[in-house]
Structures are given as structure tokens and as C-alpha cells.
């Protein structure tokens, strides 16, 4: 770990990917090469290991290549509900065992559901690694399809939606509602949290078929980071997962869609909020396309931190907004594998308006489209992005999860070491092109959400729906 050369090369592996890139202009001592070793088991499970003995702990992530896009129609929210049910026991390890074993082993665990994947993550003292892998393998085989736990988690998920959406001002409109308006295909534009009716209608048969279809080893990646060698980790993976047969996975529908060709404006009212807010979203370039890294850098130039163009404009100079934040779907600029959005979310002042905020955004975008970004700014932003990328890999749980996600979505865990170079290679001309191609009015979807109490007549939307 932390060496710039890969420490292990094992004989007999199906594949070994060695990490190999660092930005040319960053000082040598600022570089970090993350060790990555990859092996595919006979049943199709891909195992990615990042060795690091600086802490006697280990991070584990099992990433399944299924998320909200592929949940059954008329079962909105099912991929997420299913994620909850993965913690509800198996015939061998009934409800309660999973959490008890991990907590009692000194560990922490969690899971999350995204558009393109669902991940199950743990971190623990390395003494608990065998147990964690055993538990993950156990629930990959089958679940305890049980009506009581299904009902329990239907209730819990509804409480989750109440606490995060229904009982909260803004109700997550900048990440739930925005996609419903921006996308055309059901896979991309339905509510991944789900309607209460669809959640209530979920049956044990649904749970069984989803597990059978999408939770086999061939549709999963196991990431392990920390105090273990790749050789040991591959051996353990084979020991616990090797005997699970692969299962056929349905061919996904074509959920690709092009950029939008006409701006969409939506007005909403909010009974709980006291301060108005706006979300403006643009469809992103396809993953891995030549515009991908430029769009990521452009996103940071515009709204990466307090030095960014939009923070300085909207919050500081024009003083229209309290804040401006950038969202990349439900993940980050590098973790998607289908249509996704670059979304700007701002709380704006009562004496301002959505139009004023949009005009200020357009002004900054136009500057870049016309004149690019000066060298000093571009260098600063890239330096920060490089450091942020490393920061996200510091903890073992995040490192295991990142390498597993990259393997799942890019087919290459070593993307974790390529991203710094991709960032470094972006030029001012690339930013101009990205700004002109993606951050256009036609490709934009806007939600203006105002407190009901303000009861101000909404400004006429230029090409409005709703």
C-alpha cells in the first residue's frame, strides 16, 4: 500500500490488473497508487483486492449489478426494499444473526441502492473477515423469504420515506423529482424510493424472483481492502463463495436516451419549506465517452467548492442564493452506467427568483463556452479533484466499495488509478466543448420549488410544463 509499484503478482490468476497511472504534473510525493488485484472465480464472481496493512482492519463491499433502473414495473422502490430484506435473515442465519455477528465482531455494516447497482458494505477488525465473507456468501445463496420480515421492512422503508421525504422541507425534490421530469424512459424516470402502494404490493414471490435473477455470483463483485494479501483474500473468496452456482441474469432493456432537446420548467409548492429552492439539471455525457472527464471537471469548476464560479457568483457577488451544490445522480461524477444528471441545487433568497438564479448560471456557463477556463483556475480545480479522489479512498470500507463499483460499472477496478490521469488530461478546450454540448438550455430541466406560505404567483415559465 502506498507504494507506487504493485507488490504482488500471483501465478494462476485469471486476471491481474496492475495500477499504472499518475498525473504527470503532480509532484511525485502527492501521488498515490492504489494496489488493485483482480480475480474472477469459476462461478463468475469477480474479486477485487486492495492490500493495505497500515491498520489491522478490513473493508468489504459486495456490489450487485442491479439497481433502481431494473426493478419491476409497478413495483417502484422494490430494489431498495429488497436491499433491506437482504438484512432480514436466511434459512441458515435467521433474522438478527447478520447484524449481531458483525457488530459483535467489532464491525459496522450498511447497504445502499442506486440506479445501476446495490452495495453491501462492512468494515471490521480483520479478525472478523472470515465471518463477514461467510455471511455475505450465505445471503447470496438464498434468503429467508418470510412474510413477517417483509411486513416489518415495508413499514421501515415507509418510515424512511417519511423521515427523508414526506416530513422534510424540500422532500428530496432535487434528487427524486428532478429525474422524473428529465428522463423519458421508465427505467430512468420512476421514483426509486417508491410509492407506498407499490411497496405495499410487493410479495414474497417478487422477492424470490429478484434474488434468483439478480443476486447470483456472476452478477456481483466482491471488493476487499485492508490488512490481507490478495492471495489470502482470493483463497477466502473461493472458500466461501466458490460453490455458489452462477444463475442466469435477464438481459436488461435498452434504457439509453439522448440529450433533451427542449427545456423543461416545473413549478412546485412546498407546505413545509420556508425558503425557496431551485434544482437545475442537465443530462451527462455517457460513461467513458470523451466528454466524461471534461464534464466532471466542468462540474467542479462551476460548483465544486467555495472557490467555484457559481458559489462566487450566486452566493458572494450577486447574493441571490444561500448555497449552491452539485449532484451527480445519486452517486458521483464517475459512478454511473446509464443516463444520469448533473444537478445544481440552490436555496435562494425570497427577494430573488428562479429566473435570476438561472440567468446567473447561464452567464457563467457562457463565459466558459466562449472563452474557456484560465490555466491557473484549471490547475487549482484539478489539484483539488485529485486530492478529493484520494480522500474518498482513505477508509477501507470506501476503498473496497469504490474498487468493487468500478469493476461493476466500468468492468475495470483499476479505473480507480486511471481517474487522476483523466482529470489531468482535461484542457480548457474540452471544458468549452462540454459546456456547449451539455449545459445548454435545451438539455436542461428545472424545478422551482417555493414555500406554499409565500403564495407568490410563479413567474411565467418560458416553455413550461406543469
Amino acid at each position, binding site marked *: 500500500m502506498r507504494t507506487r509499484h504493485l507488490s504482488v503478482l500471483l501465478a494462476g490468476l485469471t486476471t491481474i490488473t496492475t495500477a499504472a497511472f499518475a498525473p504527470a504534473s503532480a509532484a511525485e510525493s502527492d501521488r498515490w497508487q492504489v494496489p488493485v488485484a483482480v480475480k474472477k472465480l469459476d462461478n463468475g464472481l469477480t474479486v477485487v483486492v486492495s492490500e493495505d496493512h497500515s491498520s489491522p482492519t478490513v473493508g468489504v463491499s459486495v456490489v450487485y449489478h442491479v439497481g433502481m433502473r431494473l426493478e419491476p414495473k409497478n413495483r417502484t422502490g422494490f430494489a431498495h426494499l429488497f436491499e433491506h430484506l437482504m438484512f432480514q435473515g436466511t434459512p441458515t442465519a435467521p433474522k*438478527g444473526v447478520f447484524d*449481531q455477528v458483525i*457488530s459483535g465482531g467489532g464491525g459496522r455494516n*450498511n447497504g445502499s441502492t442506486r440506479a445501476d447497482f446495490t452495495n453491501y458494505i462492512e468494515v471490521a*477488525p480483520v479478525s472478523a473477515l472470515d465471518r463477514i465473507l461467510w455471511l455475505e456468501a450465505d445471503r447470496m445463496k438464498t434468503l429467508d423469504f418470510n412474510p413477517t420480515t417483509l411486513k416489518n421492512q415495508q*413499514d421501515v422503508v415507509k418510515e424512511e420515506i417519511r423521515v427523508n421525504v414526506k416530513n422534510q422541507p424540500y422532500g428530496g425534490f432535487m434528487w427524486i423529482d428532478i429525474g422524473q421530469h428529465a428522463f423519458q424512459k421508465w427505467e430512468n424516470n420512476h421514483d426509486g424510493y417508491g410509492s407506498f402502494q407499490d411497496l405495499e404490493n410487493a410479495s414474497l414471490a417478487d422477492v424470490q424472483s429478484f434474488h434468483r435473477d439478480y443476486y447470483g455470483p456472476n452478477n456481483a463483485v466482491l471488493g476487499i481492502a485492508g490488512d490481507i494479501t490478495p492471495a489470502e483474500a482470493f483463497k477466502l473468496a473461493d472458500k466461501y463463495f466458490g460453490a455458489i452456482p452462477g444463475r442466469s441474469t435477464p438481459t436488461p432493456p435498452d434504457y439509453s436516451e439522448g440529450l433533451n432537446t427542449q427545456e423543461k420548467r416545473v413549478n412546485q409548492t412546498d407546505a413545509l419549506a420556508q425558503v425557496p429552492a431551485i434544482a437545475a439539471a442537465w443530462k451527462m455525457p455517457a460513461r467513458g465517452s470523451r466528454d466524461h472527464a471534461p464534464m466532471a471537471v466542468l462540474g467542479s469548476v462551476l460548483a465544486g467548492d*467555495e472557490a467555484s464560479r457559481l458559489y462566487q457568483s450566486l452566493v*458572494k457577488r450577486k*447574493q441571490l442564493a444561500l448555497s449552491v451544490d452539485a449532484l451527480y445522480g445519486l452517486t458521483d461524477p464517475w459512478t454511473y452506467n446509464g443516463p444520469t444528471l448533473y444537478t445544481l441545487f440552490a436555496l435562494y433568497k425570497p427577494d430573488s427568483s428562479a429566473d435570476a438564479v438561472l440567468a446567473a448560471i447561464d452567464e457563467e456557463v457562457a463565459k466558459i463556452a466562449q472563452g474557456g477556463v484560465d490555466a491557473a483556475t484549471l490547475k487549482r480545480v484539478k489539484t483539488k479533484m485529485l486530492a478529493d479522489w484520494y480522500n474518498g479512498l482513505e*477508509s477501507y470500507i470506501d476503498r473496497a466499495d469504490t474498487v468493487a463499483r468500478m469493476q461493476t460499472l466500468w468492468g475495470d477496478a483499476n479505473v480507480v488509478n486511471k481517474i487522476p490521469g483523466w482529470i489531468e488530461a482535461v484542457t480548457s478546450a474540452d471544458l468549452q466543448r462540454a459546456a456547449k454540448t451539455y449545459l445548454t438550455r435545451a438539455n436542461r430541466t428545472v424545478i422551482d420549488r417555493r414555500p406554499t406560505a409565500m403564495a407568490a404567483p410563479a413567474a411565467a415559465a418560458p416553455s413550461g410544463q406543469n
Partner: protein
Amino acid sequence: MNMHKNLLAVATSLALVAIGGVAFAGPAAKLPSQLPPLAADKALPVPQIAQKTLANGLEVWVVPRKGLPRVDYVLAVRNAGYAADAADASGFASLYAQLLTQGTPKRDAKAIAEAAQGYGGTLAANALNDGVILSGYALPTQSEAMLRLLAEVAQQANFPDAEVKLAQANALQELKVSQAQPGFKATRALLAATYGDHPYGHTQPTEAAINAVSADKVRAEHARRFRPERALLIVTGRISADEGFKYAEAAFGGWKGSGEPIADTAPARREAKPQRLFVQRDGSVQSAVRLGRPAIAATDADYIPAQLAGIVLGGGFSSRLMQNLREDKGYTYGARGGLNALRAGGLVQASADVRNEVTGAAIGEFIYEFGKLNDYPVPAQELEDTKRYVAGGYLIGNQMQASVAASLASNWLYGLPPQFLGEYVPKVRAVGADQVQAAAKKYYATKDQSIIVVGDYKAVQSQLKEYGEFKLEK
């Protein structure tokens, strides 16, 4: 934003002070016979802290590490936080901390933000009850420059009039945003019910307090609050102790305090008459339920057993509250609780947001779990698992250098010695079930807990009768 199985931040919290724990609602689940055994534990790493005090009184601790390419700095300033705010200036410290990075004679706010960005880092300040934390990090080649920037801000922040005005205007709007959230209202009521008139009892901003801020006041407070003999600089990451001390001397050697330092915070009360408060929130589809009472400071002799009792009760996903209210009853997305101990006092609290229909039933389960913790010793396996959970939390936090720095800084603010971090796990390991139960009887007795509900009174009123007479607040 997250669609997580739970709301616990598993990956980023050091989990030494208030987070972490495992326990079970009933008898522990029977473990499958096929489950592999735990391997032998490795030795607990203990942070090696090189310590030095500069001539002006600034303490400097350097913790060299071989982790990712980054150097982290934390400047903790004692008595500079919320507890130093006047009674009519509640929440002042957060506005003040936010303004620290908004200008010096050499650089305006934009130049400060751009410098930090160019170092591959950030520079930010935040207020806590017992102090203000100014922290920054940078890539190794930029680490010396980042410390100079941090020192410039600490010593020369000049709080430009226009920045103060903008921060005030924004704070008024942000207060409206906060007030729309049930948790904010619940915290306000809980702090008042537990700490009363003590400064810990009013740390949230008010409209009047925000309006009363002026640039002159902020400058005067900065002079009073930021002084070397009240500060600790922690340096950690890819840096040697010698380098760390050298950079610190160069950046902070000339720092001098002026005027009279702020007096230490008076001890907070340890007992309070339990109250029943209902805070009306129109249109709520959930009730934010909180229980709590004042308790003890982090330096109290009962701290470790009281902390452990809280972790059994509501410290982690496997805690009794989570297992009961979520995993058994399905009342909530998350229930938690425990001890939050600070420098001059602390409180015991428990919380869950539950749908309107089960508000009364949820309070009943809280009371049941508090009672059980009082009436029965924690079973041996559950206690052992909880201790392992605490030890694991320590190890997990120790992976991350910013987390180590943050823990050392909070402990120092609370008045705990530097070695406390490395001694915490052995101290927890030494606690017996009898001590946990004794702590539960002292600090987790049901009869001592105030109960606060934020929600729609009309919708849940009829469920509350058996828990006492609730005073209705708007």
C-alpha cells in the same frame, strides 16, 4: 440523499465518544454452527503523539502517519465556542466560526478559498459547545503553505463589514430552513429541558441574536476567544514530528493573545425536573420523539460505564432501541440514544422519528428499554459484544488521520488527556455488568427523563395521556 439501510454514518465517525454499540432486544440470536470462528485479535495501535508547547503557550501535537498523500491540521481553541456566547447571543459562535475564513488583511474570502483549493484541500471552521475548531488539509507538497494560510486566518482574520452583513442575511434565511425541520425544533426543546439556562441550553441561533451581530462585535469576540494559551494545534499525516514542530513554530511562534481570556464555563446542572413538552408542527406525518435528562461531563468518574450503558441502549444498529423500535416493531427508520458528555456537563438522550399512529406506542417502548437497562444486568455475551463493538469503532476511526485528529481535539476540549484516546478501549474492557447497571440507575432512570414530541398535536394527542400532561408549545 442516501437510500441506506440505516442512517448511521458507518465509515466516517471515529465512534469513540457518542456513536457505536451493539446489543439485542431479547436474548442474543443463536449463531449458526457453520459460522467460522473469529480469528485472534491483533494488538490495538495507539497513536504516537509528539508533544511540544511553544513559548506563547500554544500546544502542538504531531502524529506522523504513512497513509494517503495528505497532511491534516486541526487548531482547537478552548472556550471559543457556543458556551462563550452571551445569553442574548445564542448561536453566535457558528456565525463567528463561519466568518473566520472570510478575509485577512492579505486575502479576501475568494483568495482564501482559491488558495485552499490550489493546495488540494479546504480550510474551514466550525463551532462546538466547548470551542472552535479551525481545520485544514492539503497535499504533502502544499502542506507548509496550508499551515501558513491556517495561521494567517487564525491570527489575522479581519471580518470585513460586507462579509458580516452577508453572513447575517444568509443566517436569517438558514434559520428559516432549520426551523422547518422537525429535528431542529426537537433539539431546541431538549436542550432547554435538560440544560435550562446554562450556555449549553441555548446553542441554536435566534432571529434576534443574528440581527444583533455586527462586524465590530465579531472582531472584539475574536480577540477575546482566539489566543495561543487556549489553543492546541494537531498535525497529522505524511509529515515528521520535526517538520511539524518547525512549521508550527514558523506559523504560530509570533501569535499573542490580548486582553482578558474568557472564564471557564460553569458546570452544567446534573439534575432537572422532568418535563413533558409538545411542539406543534403543522402537517407533520411523523412525530419526532426525544427523551433526555442532564447527566455528566466527560471527565466524570462515571463517564466510561455511563457511556457503555448508552451504547447498549442505543449506540448502533444492533442496539436495543434499534432492534426493538425498528427491527421488531417497524415504528421508525432509526432509534438511537446514549450519553453525550462534554467539558462542563452532558446529557443522556434517546430519539426516533415515528409515524403519527404509533407515537404513544413508541414512547412506551422507549420507557420499556430504559427500564430494562435499570432493572437487569446486561447479559454477559451482549456486554462482551458491545465491548468488541467499541474496540472495533476505535480501530475503524484510527484508519483515518482526520478522524484521529478530530478525536484528539474533542478530548482535549473536554479536558481529557492525550493518552485517553489510546486508553479508551482498555478502560471500556474493564467495566463490569454491575457498573453498567449502576450507571443506568443513576443516569437512565425512566422517572428522570423529559419527554419531547414535535409533531401534529391533533393527530397524536389521544395517544399521550398515559405519559403525563404535555405542555403545548408553538
